[in-house]
């Protein structure tokens, strides 16, 4: 049903929009659900023997936050970071700290740079992703007592490259989120 609506012509959608509103559960819950699902991506068929996967959940968080400022509350880093810690394999708590700090940092970025295009968003996200992965590797290095390996370089690059793709996915999800499915 949802896919039909996605491919429907605009007039079709507009006609159905009268007397309809987005489902509250979908409109509020979808960002949370998708970020949490991305956290669980470590249970994917790919068993990696090196850290090569981009931190999908974190990218998703950034994309949602950049696309809809104010939709995720500023404290969203606490529960979502906690959930990510359950699956990421990092020492417990690193997600809680880093995600909370990220949400606060994005708040500052919003205050400072009011008018931003996509390239500025991407730049801000790049800085945050690089800092996040470096901090993650540092914390993991602290836990093992082994110096920071230089393996996160490719991972950072891959994450930066994949960020625009994630934003497109989030944009699509946002369309699903706001589908007028509820009859008023």
């Amino acid at each position, binding site marked *: 049903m949802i896919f039909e609506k996605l491919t429907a012509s605009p007039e079709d959608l507009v006609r159905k929009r009268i007397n309809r509103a987005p489902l509250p559960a979908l409109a509020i819950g979808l960002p949370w659900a998708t970020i949490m699902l991305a956290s*669980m991506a*470590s*249970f*994917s*068929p*790919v*068993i*990696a*023997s*090196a*850290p*090569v*996967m*981009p*931190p*999908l959940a974190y990218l998703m968080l950034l994309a949602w936050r950049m696309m809809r*400022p*104010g939709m995720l*509350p*500023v*404290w969203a*880093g*606490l529960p979502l*970071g906690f959930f990510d810690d*359950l*699956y*990421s*394999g*990092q*020492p*417990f*708590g*690193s*997600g*809680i*700290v*880093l*995600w*909370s*700090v990220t*949400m*606060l940092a994005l708040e500052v970025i*919003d205050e400072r740079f009011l*008018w*931003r295009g*996509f390239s500025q*968003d991407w730049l801000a996200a790049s800085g945050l992703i690089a800092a996040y992965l470096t901090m*993650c590797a540092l*914390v*993991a*290095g*602290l*836990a*093992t*007592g*082994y110096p*920071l*390996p*230089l*393996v996160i370089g490719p991972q950072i690059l891959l994450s930066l490259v994949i960020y625009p793709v994630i934003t497109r996915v989030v944009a699509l999800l946002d369309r699903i989120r706001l589908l007028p499915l509820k009859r008023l």
Partner: protein
Amino acid sequence: MARPKDRRPGYSRRAQYGIFTGYVIAMLGVVAGIAVLVVSLVNPGAFSFARSAAAEVARPMGKAGAEGRASGQGVFAAIGAYFKAGQQNAELRREVDAARANAVSMQALEDENRRLKALLGIVDPARRPVATAHLIGSSGASTRRYAVLDAGISDGVRPGQPVRAASGLIGRVIEAGPRTARVLLVTDPDNVVPVRRASDGLSAFVQGASDGRIDIRLINMGTNPLKKGDVFVTSGSGGLYPPGIPVAVATAPHRDGATGHLAADPADHVYVLVEQAFSAQARDDLQRMIEDGAKTAVEEP
């Protein structure tokens, strides 16, 4: 992109307090996160219950993925085999001939081995694996290298037990939940495995470099006798890993050791075996540690 909405809420006290509370909770998140992080750095097993509960929840998903991986590999292998059928046929026939010759000499050796063992009075203890399991997940984005098994305490899996695949060592169990268990892979820097060179028994140890490769360090350092292509198998010292499991192949010798790659890439294997800790003493020690709840001791190789 349009500028975000101004979030100053005007004169509404309720809205002002709401925003203020949001910031307070966010700051609390940072503080609480640091506290939790310190606890988990001091005691790595502190939150294992939460992690294993989460792994239990994701188990069906991972299991479906693991089966998808197996069938996916099967499909690709089948297509590849179709294209290479003729060449492969000839190759296989040659290999079978060679293997048949080898098998005869193996048979002879085995007979001799049995006779000699009988002479010496050595009894080979039959080691039965504890469980056969899928790898259903891994920490793909973290520099810590973990994988998750779909077997747990109910299948007899306990922390400390070695995990191997058909072609080599995968790692060891560090946390076991009811039906899932967490495996510390050989590529994690925390995992140190005592090994010996398969050809001459030169002893060394293998430590993960967390980039998919491993460091092979020699115990008797002097001139570096390692060469590219040297195969290392577990030596069995320490009593945890059974001797003779392939671990690594040296690829790039350096001043005091070598960098190598794994004998068994966890991604290539559909099934892995969980085995008992090798020596009875190690088994008893592990059992005692579990009863004491002292998880840190399991970290020792």
